[in-house]
């Protein structure tokens, strides 16, 4: 199979270049349109912050990787994009590359399953624009199956691998039901926003934002449906919160040990989690010595991140095994797109239906008629299949149209699904 792929990704290009070639949804549609008109019979265009990729079945044999790169550089005319920033894949390697992306082992953050959704979205766009044929459909189905197996059968996506998510993972190791807990996020920057969103995703019971600039706190609170607390008196309300996440850019300590100690007196041994994800730190590290206070800063959260990344890395061989299995399964299907296996499959399917019906009804016939029943039904099947068999034998196996024809026949008569059921 002559699937071609061109990729510019986190392994081949620096972040500024990856950002420069990132395609918006409209740009993906424009590239897809051009690719369909000029280069490919069918294909897929994928673009995320860490990779931009084009997959396709060439319309003619003269097509080279340079033509495909041109699709990207036409939309993003950048001087500094030379060939060295691209990776090229052909045939089996191209399919394997797609499977590796979906399963998360080719992601910058190993096991990141965001890519799974992004590929689904890209495929949806390709399908809407009529860029998906029988081959890409099958490749996509196999890729999705690979991704799902990687997630369910291995630990490739287990555990938190970002500091803000590690903070939430740690909070979940202390509290049982976050919907009954209250959280205060100090700061309204990007880190605070990510942490607040993670808490929201975990159905936190009450979420409050406080920030030196009240307007910024209001803006963030509006985005994530939280309430706002005045920065000037937030220290008096600390005891009302089970979780406090601080991520400000303040130059010194915001919360002293005494602040936490006095709020803990009001909480009567009720645990409090303090996540200091600011640099420099916002909370006095000495607070960790107070009973029932769980204080953690970036360094301690990084321990969790590194441990989880190590677990994910150790899972790569298992995922690679799944990829190999799915590649084998895909090529088994692909190699069946030829005259002989298709005719064989078609005949086996008809014969199994005939045999089943004969067996069901055999008792309705007298003993002497049973042999005739076998002969007559076999003759009917042969006559039905005579013309399709002759036509399939005439089909050129080496052509894309021939493979498509075999694919349609197999799908129409459910030859592959019958085999799988068996």
């Amino acid at each position: 199979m002559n699937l071609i792929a061109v990729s510019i990704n986190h392994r081949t290009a620096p972040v500024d270049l990856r950002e420069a070639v990132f395609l918006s949804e409209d740009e993906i549609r424009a590239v897809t349109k051009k690719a369909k008109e000029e280069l490919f019979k069918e294909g897929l265009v994928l673009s995320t912050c860490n990779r931009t990729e084009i997959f396709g079945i060439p319309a003619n044999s003269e097509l080279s990787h340079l033509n495909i790169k041109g699709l990207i550089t036409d939309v993003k005319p950048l001087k500094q994009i030379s060939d060295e920033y691209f990776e090229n894949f052909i045939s089996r390697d191209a399919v394997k590359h797609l499977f590796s992306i979906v399963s998360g082992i080719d992601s910058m953050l190993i096991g990141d399953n965001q890519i799974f959704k992004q590929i689904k979205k890209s495929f949806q766009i390709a399908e809407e624009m009529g860029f998906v044929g029988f081959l890409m459909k099958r490749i996509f189905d196999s890729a999705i199956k690979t991704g799902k197996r990687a997630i369910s059968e291995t630990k490739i996506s287990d555990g938190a691998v970002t500091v803000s998510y590690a903070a939430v993972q740690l909070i979940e190791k202390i509290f049982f039901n976050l919907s009954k807990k209250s959280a205060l996020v100090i700061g309204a920057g990007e880190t605070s926003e990510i942490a607040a969103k993670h808490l929201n995703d975990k159905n936190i019971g009450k979420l409050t934002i406080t920030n030196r600039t009240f307007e910024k706190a209001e803006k963030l609170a509006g985005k994530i449906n939280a309430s706002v607390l005045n920065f000037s008196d937030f220290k008096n309300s600390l005891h009302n919160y089970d979780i406090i996440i601080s991520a400000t850019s303040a130059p010194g300590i915001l919360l002293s040990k005494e602040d936490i100690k006095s709020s803990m007196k009001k909480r009567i041994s009720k645990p409090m989690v303090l996540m200091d994800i600011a640099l420099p730190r916002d909370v006095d590290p000495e607070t960790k010595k107070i009973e029932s206070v769980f204080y953690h800063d970036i360094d301690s959260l990084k321990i969790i991140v590194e441990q989880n990344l190590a677990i994910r890395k150790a899972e790569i061989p298992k995922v690679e095994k799944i990829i190999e299995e799915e590649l084998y399964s895909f090529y088994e299907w692909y190699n069946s797109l030829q005259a002989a296996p298709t005719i064989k499959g078609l005949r086996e399917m008809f014969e199994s239906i005939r045999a089943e019906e004969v067996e069901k009804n055999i008792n309705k016939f007298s003993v002497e008629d049973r042999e005739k029943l076998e002969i007559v039904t076999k003759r009917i099947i042969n006559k039905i299949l005579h013309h399709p068999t002759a036509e399939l034998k005439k089909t050129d196996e080496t052509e894309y149209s021939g493979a498509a024809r075999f694919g349609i026949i197999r799908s129409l008569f459910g030859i592959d699904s019958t085999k799988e059921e068996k």
Partner: protein
Amino acid sequence: MVSLIHFLNILLPLLYFFSFLIYFYDFMRDEKKFINVKRIFLFLTLLIHVIYVIVRIIKFDHPPITNVFEIFTIISFAIGFSYFILELVTDIRGTGPFIIIISFIFQLISSLFIQDLLEVKDVLRSSLLGAHVISALLGYAGFTISAVYGFLYLVLYKDIKLNKFGLIFNRLPNLEVLERLSLYSAVIGFISLTIAIVIGVIWLPSAFPDFSYLDPKLIGTSLVWILYAIGIASKVLIRWRGRKLVLLSITGFVVSILSTFLSNFLARSFHSFY
């Protein structure tokens, strides 16, 4: 039948030990394939334990509550069975090895020292005594499980405080769940022990002529009961929680072990029957 009893007596500690090994292996490796295997194995172990107890009752014509080693086999079963139900109801699986090892220890001691008693005092065949002993055993099983969860709470609490994110952190349920499991087990244990004490105080004086309120076991049990009463009251009235509460539970358990040890092995008591 006696040979069957002897065979099961040897088999049971081995079964509990293998249950512990499977749970422990699963705790270390966290492999999905062991999720059901370990549960089925524990179920079979408990089933064989039930058969063992029934066969003993039939053959020796008394419930196995007449001496400490007979009682140990019942405690072993009560702890294992309580954990099995807890696992089924809550689906919290990471704490199994820490509970099953206790069942194993009780059963091992029982199997080593248990005797085939055909002759027992008539009072030991009383159904009220049965209710008294069984409720007391359920109470102690509850306290044991409560203490194990309390201990696990303290270990996880310390690990989180010290940024140790190893096996304990990854496998155990969260602190709040451990605290609740410890509290619920203690409450169930406390209710059961209260029933045992009430039956004892009402009925035992008439059954035992040498009954005394200064009996060491009675004093020890009362002390344990008071400790758990304080713990539960502090939870309800002062809203104590977390480390303080589990420390009380562990203290209660240590006192109950000491009380059992002192009253059964060192002091003479009307509770001693052999």
